[in-house]
């Protein structure tokens, strides 16, 4: 869709949902198209659900839900002849995630007879290349992290770079009707088409941030999608559910959501500055925003995300209802720790630093831990034991050693063995590899597209 003439007066962006696979009403799309959408943009990923999805290269969403959403979006994009952009495919934005979504797109195109040009943009990075950049002094930590070392890069099972809008724009200019991007900033997915059509960066990036979670910027976050129209002086935004509203407060408040700083937000090529933005109600459900700015940075940077295996885990669960134990639950937990530690040393002969465990007392203080200030005697406590070791066999062995303690451990002062309430048989579940996010760094780059690889071609079946 190359722009033949000058920039249009405005560009309309349809965001059907905050997450591909999250679901939306077909009316959402009909309404967005009728408002004159020029592009459909949807986010397919996030770090928010934890490191497993990036670490394992597996999607959080289920295939059926993604297929259902994509079928509606592909049909709408084809019939309105507008592009569809999906960012952070497969939750983590790994190459496997892009291939997974592309496979679903190909199958739908074949089944529904859609003839579309599909671009895949890969954002996965090799540790070796990044180690070279590290040695050149081009990798920098973001707060609160420490400078990176090569060993940490080497431990990652997957590393992705977060692309800006440029690789997506490149794919659109190459003729893509559907862009399936690996890891991208949430905003780049919505900003790319408008920037390509010459909309000003301040309003475009701000609008892209506001729409990135779909209905989160409305009075009813569960209602689904939103529509933003960006022009040369600002943007307007409205929900796609006619019974929901955007208000100046609901739109402004979205800059708070999952951000450290509500006024500035760093993108690869610069910083979104919204401290001077003015939010005005146009009618009871539409908001106008002007005054947003985008400050280009001196150095273009790509943020890295990486997950590494920290160990292999087994989770066990039991329930305690006995008031005598509950009255001294902290004493019981301490006795459990001590007993298990002794048993692991004496029976399994494991070095103390080769395993770890986390005993969580749900109903007592599991969630807040040492921050808990509400003293109460619970009616019952769910006891979860999470064991981590260097391999699954060891984590399972420790959990099996813990089993009789989770079933029968008395208080130190008791002279009989209680029996607690296992919820399942067996009481433990092997979790396999456990991951941790270990990268919070940016790399200086000379080209916004250099770290990303583009493949473009007809959808399967044509």
């Amino acid at each position, binding site marked *: 869709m190359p722009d033949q003439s000058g920039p249009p007066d405005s560009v309309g962006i349809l965001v059907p949902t905050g997450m591909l696979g999250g679901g939306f009403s077909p009316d959402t799309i009909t309404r967005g198209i009728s408002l004159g959408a020029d592009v459909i943009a949807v986010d397919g990923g996030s770090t928010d659900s934890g490191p*497993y999805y990036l670490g394992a290269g597996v999607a959080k969403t289920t295939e059926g839900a993604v297929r259902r959403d994509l079928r509606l979006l592909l049909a709408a994009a084809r019939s309105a002849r507008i592009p569809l952009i999906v960012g952070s495919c497969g939750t983590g934005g790994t190459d496997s995630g892009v291939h997974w979504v592309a496979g679903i797109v190909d199958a739908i195109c074949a089944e529904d007879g859609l003839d579309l040009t599909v671009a895949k943009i890969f954002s996965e990075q090799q540790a070796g290349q990044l180690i070279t950049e590290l040695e050149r002094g081009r990798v920098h930590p973001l707060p609160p*992290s420490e400078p990176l070392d090569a060993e940490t890069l080497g431990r990652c099972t997957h590393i992705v770079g977060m692309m800006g809008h440029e690789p997506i724009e490149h794919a659109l200019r190459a003729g893509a009707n559907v862009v399936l991007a690996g890891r991208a900033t949430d905003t780049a997915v919505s900003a790319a088409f408008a920037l390509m059509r010459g909309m000003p960066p301040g309003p475009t990036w701000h609008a892209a941030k506001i729409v990135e979670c779909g209905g989160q910027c409305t009075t009813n976050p569960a209602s689904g999608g939103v529509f933003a129209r960006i022009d040369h002086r600002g943007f307007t935004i409205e929900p796609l559910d006619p019974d929901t509203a955007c208000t100046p407060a609901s739109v*402004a408040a979205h800059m708070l959501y999952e951000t450290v700083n509500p006024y500035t937000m760093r993108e690869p090529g610069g910083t979104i500055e919204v401290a001077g933005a003015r939010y005005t109600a146009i009618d009871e459900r539409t908001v106008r925003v002007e005054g947003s700015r985008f400050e280009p940075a001196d150095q273009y940077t790509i943020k890295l995300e990486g997950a590494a295996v920290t160990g292999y885990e087994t989770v066990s669960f039991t329930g305690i209802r006995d008031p005598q134990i509950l009255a001294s639950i902290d004493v019981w937990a301490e006795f459990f720790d001590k007993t298990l530690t002794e048993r692991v040393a004496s029976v399994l002969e494991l070095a103390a630093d080769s395993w770890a465990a986390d005993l969580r*007392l749900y109903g007592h203080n599991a969630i807040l831990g040492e921050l808990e200030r509400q003293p109460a005697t619970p009616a019952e406590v769910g006891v979860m034991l999470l064991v981590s070791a260097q391999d699954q066999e060891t984590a399972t062995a420790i959990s099996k050693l813990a089993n009789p303690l989770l079933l029968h451990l008395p208080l130190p002062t008791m002279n009989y063995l209680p029996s607690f309430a296992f919820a399942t048989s067996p009481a433990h579940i092997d979790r396999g590899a456990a991951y941790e996010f270990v990268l919070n760094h940016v790399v200086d780059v000379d080209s916004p597209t250099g770290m990303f690889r583009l493949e473009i071609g007809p959808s399967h079946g044509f």
Partner: protein
Amino acid sequence: MASETNDAPRTLGDLALEVRSKNAGPFWMTLEAFMPDEETYRIADALITTELISELYHVAPASLQIFRIPDLHVVKVSFPRPVVQGSLHDRDMHAGQHHVPLANVVVPSPQGPGRVPVAGGPRRRAGRRWSGR
């Protein structure tokens, strides 16, 4: 949701439209108190200090960022996650339940005696963070 009785202490959560918490990426946590009007915003603004947050969340004062947004009647606080998201000892993957210590802070009553900043009893030893180490 204000208390019906005069003797029950009012908390920030009683006064607020919403007090919420969430990850801001895997390495940060952010808290927000949404107040309904200017009067309650002023109460929240006065109550939420570096000292209070540092005490409630065991974080170094220097690592805290507090944003006071009178136009929205919001006070927002961000700080590095004490436990990295998804690690063995992370019990709140989205940090979605960490607003509670802030929501439970007692608001000083206008006619009452001095300010009582924190609800609940003495700090308990909890958070079973241990290993064979």
